[in-house]
């Protein structure tokens, strides 16, 4: 890539603070946080790309309602809905053309205000074939889990260990849930959609986050602790659920695009922030990301490779299982990855991180995946 694009500043607002605030207010506050970190005025912002969802907000053209709250009044600002990784990728492209030297990337979801993740993801399904039979986020993840457990002898205990790990990490993250969860708690929790129990599933949270992208030159001007974008890749799978290979979808190829662009191998990743709305998916995604051979996700968690003390810590922030503002969760992963590279992740900091991987996904059982590789 010719000129590099840098991440200059990041900001987050978690569930506890956001839940009783109006959506415009938390968008305003997270944007002001970024501007104060880099001592910029709203007028100096180049372009602004936001991510939110009309169904997830109950307000159509969702960015219209908070347009000026993210400083976009009379600015060139667009919206990439459904997955906030889109907003990050699109912001990066606008910088690369040289039209803008800074881009504010923002995302927001108030999961406490919606009819429910299942009601809204049931609307992902076509109205004729799949919706009437009730496909939704949880049941499709369950269908994927049963196939995964059957083919590679992954057990409910393996999945429960992921929850215990991530909820444990979440205690160190001010923006995540604060209750520790044991493997037993997970196994005892009420069945949602076999084999997924309540604690195998991510909560529906309120939250917003933002980061400032800048051209290489502007990045050096604004910070002496830049994070560079080294590799990106994203890919979509088939429309009909029955058409897809649930255990080998689009993540493997999306990751390959990112690794090739960054010119590195999976083993060079120091820390990963992965989007795991359902516990066993962290294991499956780790396989697809090349962190272990196919089918060996269970072994990965058993050997503690992905613990904070392990060789390749996964989700030091507690991941999506500890904080899941649906549309914003992708950008939360990138923000956490950037904090790790900056060395500013506080109690959840993994020692001397050089390269971080951030991953986002949405759609039934991961129909679309995005992979971003960041370096110091």
């Amino acid at each position: 890539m010719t000129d590099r694009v840098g991440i200059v500043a990041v900001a987050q607002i978690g569930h506890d603070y956001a839940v009783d605030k109006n959506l415009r207010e938390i968008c305003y506050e997270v944007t002001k946080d970024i501007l104060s970190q880099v001592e910029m005025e709203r007028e100096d912002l180049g372009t602004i790309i936001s991510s939110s969802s009309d169904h997830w907000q109950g307000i159509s053209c969702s960015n219209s309602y908070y347009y000026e709250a993210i400083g976009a009044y009379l600015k060139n600002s667009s919206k990439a809905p459904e997955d906030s990784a889109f907003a990050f990728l699109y912001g990066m492209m606008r910088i690369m053309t040289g039209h803008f030297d800074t881009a504010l990337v923002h995302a927001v979801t108030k999961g406490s205000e919606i009819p429910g993740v299942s009601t809204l993801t049931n609307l992902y399904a076509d109205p004729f074939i799949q919706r009437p039979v009730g496909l939704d986020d949880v049941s499709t993840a369950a269908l994927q889990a049963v196939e995964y457990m059957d083919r590679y002898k992954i057990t409910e205990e393996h999945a429960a260990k992921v929850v215990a790990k991530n909820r444990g990490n979440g205690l160190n993250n001010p923006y995540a849930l604060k209750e520790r969860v044991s493997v037993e708690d997970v196994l005892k929790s009420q069945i949602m959609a076999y084999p997924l129990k309540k604690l195998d599933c991510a909560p529906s949270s309120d939250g917003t986050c933002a980061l400032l992208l800048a051209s290489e030159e502007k990045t050096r001007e604004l910070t002496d602790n830049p994070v560079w974008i080294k590799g990106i890749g994203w890919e979509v799978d088939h429309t009909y659920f029955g058409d897809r290979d649930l255990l080998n979808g689009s993540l493997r190829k999306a990751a390959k695009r990112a690794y090739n662009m960054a010119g590195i191998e999976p083993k060079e990743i120091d820390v990963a922030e992965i989007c795991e709305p359902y516990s066993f998916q962290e294991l499956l995604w780790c396989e697809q990301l090349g962190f272990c051979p196919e089918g060996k996700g269970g072994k990965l968690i058993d050997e503690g490779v992905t613990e904070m003390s392990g060789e390749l810590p996964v989700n030091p922030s507690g991941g999506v299982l500890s904080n899941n503002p649906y549309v914003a969760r992708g950008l939360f992963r990138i923000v956490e990855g950037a904090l790790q590279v900056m060395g500013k992740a506080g109690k959840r900091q993994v020692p001397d991180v050089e390269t971080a991987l951030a991953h986002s996904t949405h759609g039934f059982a991961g129909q679309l995946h995005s992979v971003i590789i960041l370096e110091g």
Partner: protein
Amino acid sequence: MSRKVGIIGVGQTKHGRRDDVNYIDLVYDAVRAAMEDVKISPGDIDAVVSGSMPPPMEGINAPHLYWSDAMGAFGKPSMRIATCGSTGMSIAQSAYYHVASGLFDVVLAVGAEKMLENDPQGTMTTVADPFFQRPFIAGAPGVFSMQSIQYSHRYGLPEERVRMAAAQISVDHHTNALDNPYAHIRIKITVDDVLKSRIISYPTRLLDVCPSSDGACALVFACEEKAKKIAESPDEIAWVKGVGYAGDEHFFGDSDKVVWESAIKASQEAYKMAGIQNPLKDLDVAEIYNPFTYQELIYYECFGFCGKGEACKLVEDGAVLRGGELPCDPSGGTLCTNPIGATGLLRVGEAALQVSGRADKRQVPGARTALSHAMGGSDQFNGIMILGSDKMEV
């Protein structure tokens, strides 16, 4: 740095009431048409950008996932962009940035809508916030009419004169649509018909306002090298010369909708990039997003075609009508065809056909530089793309 980007393929469906096809197949038809236009297949596409109106419009939550196969997007980077009414333009601009960034050589832009399977005004009402404005937006007609009525009052123009200018625009565009086989409404009307049609949302009457349509549009963007390789001839490439976009605040009462800042700023941003000094002279044709006749008068002034309060004169002199100095909406425009998610792309697509000389019976002779525009949000966003041809001045 920014690479030169051209539009080479334009595909669209027959717009109108399309109960004969389901939503996925409607998109498939437009994408096949765009690929056949330049004789390429999905294998030649590096990335896909798509979008539509807010998903509550069709009750299907993620169109970019629902259409992935219909767009040939399987196994490709695919992203969705959505800004309500201006979605088509935002998609076109995103496809432009995809290519200009150097990340992708050939990018497919897809927009579609099926407005006749639901209650579009019911959906558009949910654009207004639920706390203060939702009871009062009344879909698009409600808020656009409140904008339209201010125009004559602002410049102290007799309401009759503005009423006549708007009616002339309606007759001109409906006549143009007769030459556009894809258009939804293709009827012969007179000024009298417009003046007598029933009130929808005063001052807007039936023939002042666009239909709700089903329809889809797909455009193929390419970098200079690929565009020259794929297109029939370099003269048939519509180069992107300028892009601009801006938005006002969410609350309708927060800003002036006659001297409309976001429309002014978007056009100035695009003109600066394209090197346009005097729009009326420098532009040969414009495809303006005008779901309501009155709004087009406001756009003429915001885009600098004339001074404040002079839009009626522009219409009365015929400058912006068929055969005039700067003919607007030779395709019949949004007034005759409005599958909203595709409409912004249709403006860009029609502008591309004009500058590449491929607009058949609706071709404006010798058109080399075209403005395309779209509007969205709560009467809030405006986006402009200037297209131009590099063929020799004839």
